[in-house]
């Protein structure tokens, strides 16, 4: 509000008309801005993506490692190195599938998991890090996983191996964006197959 005196200019008396020019233009501006942020940016994002793969079909990370990407994810070419690592993104989530030999230097997958897990524990961005837990994919490939979470960032890491070859799969991103993509991420991890594995699985 304002205080006026008799010497002040007249009080602002805007014309009030539901379909007046000021009313309509104001409403259009508000709707346009919200539409841009709520849908426009998403449309630009969708149209500018070059996935580099066909969702639902096997994608080879290296000669010995492949997996099946889900729809809606795209390749971050800057984070992808042919034959070694592929980086996928969606809604701010970043998933890397990295071919890794866990047996180098006489180590085991569990040793590597402990190393990565401890690193998460020392990361100032994470306040909570779960214990390392085992899992087995539908194709019988064994692995371990754990989660980490911080004020704005959450992460889950999988290590999978068929005993000969291995894959290190860290996924990070804003905590608020995990819910919609968790199932897709788990499906992609499930779909990991190694050249020595029995048969590839698609989702």
């Amino acid at each position, binding site marked *: 509000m304002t205080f006026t005196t008799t010497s002040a200019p007249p009080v602002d008396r805007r014309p009030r008309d539901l379909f007046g020019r000021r009313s309509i233009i104001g409403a259009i501006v*508000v709707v346009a801005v919200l539409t841009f942020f709520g849908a426009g940016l998403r449309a630009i994002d969708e149209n500018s993506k070059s996935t580099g793969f066909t969702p639902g079909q096997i994608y080879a990370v290296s000669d010995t490692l492949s997996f099946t990407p889900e729809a809606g994810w795209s390749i971050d070419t800057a984070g992808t190195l042919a034959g070694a690592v592929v980086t996928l993104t969606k809604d701010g989530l970043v998933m890397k599938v990295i071919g890794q030999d866990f047996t180098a230097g006489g180590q085991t997958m569990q040793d590597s998991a402990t190393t990565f897990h401890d690193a998460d524990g020392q990361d100032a961005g994470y306040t*909570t890090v779960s214990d390392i837990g085992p899992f087995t994919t539908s194709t019988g490939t064994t692995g371990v996983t754990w989660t980490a979470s911080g*004020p704005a960032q959450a992460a889950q890491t999988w290590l999978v191996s068929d005993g000969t070859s291995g894959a290190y799969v860290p996924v*990070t991103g804003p905590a608020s964006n995990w819910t919609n993509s968790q199932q897709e991420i788990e499906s992609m991890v499930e779909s990991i197959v190694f050249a020595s594995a029995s048969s590839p699985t698609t989702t």
Partner: protein
Amino acid sequence: MSAVNETPPGRQTVGTPTGRPRIFDAESFVFWVLVVVLAFGAIHTYNLLTDNGTLFTVNPSIAWLGLVLWSLYAIAFLAFVYYHQLFVRRSPWITLVAFAWGGLVATYFASEANNALDDLWTHWYSSDFTSNWGSAISAATNEETLKTLGLVVLVLLPLARVRSTLDGWFYGMMVGLGFQVVEDYLYTTQNAGDIGAALDYFWGRGLVGGLWSHAVFTGIVGGGIGFLVSRRDRSWPIRIGAAVGAFAIAWVIHFLFDASALNNWITDDFLATLVKGVPALVLLFILVHLARNQERRIWSAFVASNIDPTVVSEAEATALLDHKSRKQARKTVAHAKGHHAGRLQKHLQRAQLRYIQSVAEEGLDGQHAREDEADVNELRALIASA
């Protein structure tokens, strides 16, 4: 705020009343857009906050604890800011709508926009860029713009009567507070695994980080918007410059808070929060101080020209100019006539402030002005007989 004669020639008849601010305005298309957008935002934000309604079933203790803690936080913060308004008590309904815009509209749309823009940064540059800088650019740009849009909506509603720098500051803080508590509740429920972790979030984001977060950012922007729409005694370039400058300052502070690459420079979280947060708070205080001085001059001129000295005497008006002099006046009365009279003096001061606001909004013959004048006279009589 309009230019005024600061040395008025005695009491005159009241200028044209400004009208009582209200949010309901069926004759404004913007109002109906606001209604639809608030409903749309409420549905989507509810789904976002509760994980499509499952949160209270899956993790009830964290969900309820978070809800109670952040609700209390919002009420305490809102009450503190609301009761520290110096001369004007702004409309509670407009205040709630501002809060709701921040909490229900800005949060949901910013969530969508941030996700999309983060994807684009990764596509255009790399995931490292997104992590280090891109997410901070997205958040500062999308969130500050969407919160500012809430202020623009209020400015576009003629009956909301956002007409001063302090109006902009106040409603800006309310928009920012709404955004802040809803975002904090979201982070708490999504990341806290147990009650201890939820309390840690409340401590870190609410009590340590909350003093210089969204409410402060949008308060600064709001001051700029308020200056833009009210200071007609200044040129357009200055007014536009002030609004753009305030937005730029809020953007930079927000960006500095979010840029994870900067966290490597100061590794101590508490120190980093202080280094980034204190300048924001200081800037806000400077803005409020300057705006209050302006409001004080205009208020004094209005009282001198328009208020009956038998309702608010010159000495009483002088005592009402700031919190310190109000307290001193209450102490003087309490010292002379006892503690009860001191409390009555507090009520008298509030009634006088209400009266002056009512006269400005509705004129001397307005219903509220007459009621407030009766309150003043009654309280004055009670103090006299104490």
